[in-house]
């Protein structure tokens, strides 16, 4: 008891600048509720699990000391500003123009809450609406939602949509889809009674024959990624045709939306639902999150779309305005029969994506996509001609490609790090048959000098 009382005394003596209640106010609150002490509030917690001493915290640091300590901790991390990164695999290091976060970082956007009160939140709603509109243009789809958590959960939500739309119990997933997207999809749909069946890849792309053989009247959807996890372009139209012939939907997962600056939009080759990751559009790597889930589909499926949707309308005086729409799909109204249990979106990141797309414009997106394509092609050629290194697959690629390496990829990465180069992803982590395979990514951020430097170091390693 003595020790505990001491704890309370310590707490009282230190006035915390971020806890505004004064001693007098605490006393007043205790009197109001008829409790003798703060201690007494914890009486219901068994003695055995209560801490009988003050928390072992160091004394509070001054602001300058605190900043210095945090900065030192941050220095321990390696980031793409300090190392030359050739790592992608679902998180992409692109240049973010300063205007993006200059605008997105404004307090009006940064602190905005869910826009339930349309009359107070036209700015936020308009931003979401513009993001949705641009995403539709980018993907060639009719309707996009106001965003979801990330590419993996958006893919899973698309699978749920397909199950509800077709009333069929199975989804086929290409193993050339990001392994983590596949894991998350399984986690989401298993409790809903949906079976997830893997379909193999061959020479770096989804095996069309295997898809055809696996399709049946139980198949709700075929899920592919395009460009796929290996960076390869799929025979997307043929896959969509196969799915449609069996009465199934084609879900196209996209980990790199910038590829759409140069590739045909999924809506043009028959995709029914596009799900994917919006991080590459104006968002930083953020140590893996928060990220931006994209989801777009055809108008006929709009009532099964998950999550928030912003629509344009007119007010009583005929002026254009924006509101959350078709909310009867959502959990706060439809309860257990909602199209999804998602009750939020990544509004700020969606805004950044909208500003990024608007800043670049149609030609800018095309130009950035071309830069990615060309720089990656240059690196692919150069690395493919180093003795002992071999390009693993024949299919055309966008800005990622798989290399067979003479050393374990993890060992290669360790050695590259000594040269301040962040190497590629080791595919053996997910694919036992690809233990010597290394997934490299070359974005517009990499200069020719940096690529030449990588090649030089790799030549030296052999």
């Amino acid at each position, binding site marked *: 008891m003595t020790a505990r009382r001491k704890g309370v005394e310590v707490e009282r003596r230190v006035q915390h600048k971020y806890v505004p209640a004064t001693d007098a106010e605490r006393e007043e609150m205790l009197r109001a509720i008829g409790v003798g002490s703060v201690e007494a509030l914890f009486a219901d917690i068994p003695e055995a699990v209560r801490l009988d001493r003050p928390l072992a915290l160091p004394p509070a640091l001054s602001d300058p000391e605190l900043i210095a300590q945090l900065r030192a901790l941050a220095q321990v991390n390696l980031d793409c500003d300090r190392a030359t990164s050739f790592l992608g695999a679902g998180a992409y290091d692109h240049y973010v123009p300063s205007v993006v976060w200059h605008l997105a970082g404004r307090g009006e956007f940064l602190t905005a809450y869910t826009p339930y009160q349309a009359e107070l939140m036209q700015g936020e709603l308009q931003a979401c609406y513009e993001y949705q509109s641009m995403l539709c243009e980018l993907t060639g789809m009719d309707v996009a939602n106001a965003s979801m958590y990330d590419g993996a959960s958006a893919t899973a939500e698309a699978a749920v949509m397909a199950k509800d739309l077709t009333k069929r119990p199975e989804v086929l997933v290409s193993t050339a889809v990001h392994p983590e997207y596949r894991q998350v999809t399984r986690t989401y749909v298993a409790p809903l009674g949906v079976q997830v069946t893997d379909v193999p890849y061959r020479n770096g792309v989804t095996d069309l024959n295997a898809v055809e053989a696996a399709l049946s009247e139980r198949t709700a959807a075929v899920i592919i990624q395009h460009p796929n996890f290996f960076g390869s372009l799929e025979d997307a139209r043929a896959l969509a045709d196969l799915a449609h012939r069996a009465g199934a939907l084609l879900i196209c997962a996209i980990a790199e939306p910038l590829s759409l600056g140069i590739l045909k939009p999924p809506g043009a080759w028959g995709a029914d639902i596009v799900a994917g990751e919006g991080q590459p559009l104006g968002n930083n790597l953020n140590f893996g999150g928060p990220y931006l889930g994209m989801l777009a589909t055809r108008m006929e499926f709009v*009532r099964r779309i998950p999550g928030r949707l912003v629509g344009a309308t007119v007010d009583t005086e005929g002026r254009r305005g924006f509101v959350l729409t078709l909310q*009867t799909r959502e959990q706060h*109204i*439809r309860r257990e*029969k909602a199209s999804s249990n998602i009750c939020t979106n990544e509004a700020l990141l969606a805004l950044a994506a909208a500003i990024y797309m608007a800043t670049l414009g149609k030609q800018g997106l095309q130009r950035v996509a071309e830069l990615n394509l060309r720089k990656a092609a240059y690196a692919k050629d150069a690395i493919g001609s180093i003795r002992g290194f071999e390009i693993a697959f024949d299919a055309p690629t966008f800005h990622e490609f798989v290399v067979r390496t003479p050393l374990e990829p993890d060992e290669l990465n360790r050695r590259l790090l000594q040269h301040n180069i962040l190497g590629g992803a080791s595919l053996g982590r997910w694919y036992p048959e690809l233990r010597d395979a290394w997934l490299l990514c070359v974005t517009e951020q990499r200069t020719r000098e940096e690529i030449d430097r990588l090649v030089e170091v790799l030549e030296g390693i052999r």
Partner: protein
Amino acid sequence: MYPKELRYSTEHEWAKVEGKRVRVGITKFAAEKLTDVVFVDLPQKGVKVGYMQPFGVIESVKAVSDLYSPISGTVVDVNTKLVDAPEVVNTDPYGEGWMILVQPEDSKELDKLMTADQYATMIGESGS
């Protein structure tokens, strides 16, 4: 308000025997409670429906509800006009606002439904 020749479910659907088939819709009471109907999601032809199992969804400006089939069987026709004109459910619930036509599996299920008077009593209105 509640035609004598129809049978009624506790979920406010009506069933009308037409030869060997049963036509299904929702009652005027339900349509009025829902207010303006903006969307009706109906099954495809050929789908099986179960007695008092959901066969579709109706959505108004105020609420969204499941539609329950007062009879089990196979859907042989669907009122596709409701896709473009869902408001017909409000204006003509017993006529143009019908929803599905069912080939019943067990016509005896109709005996479990209410008469117009029973239905009126259930919703607290006097009969006819």
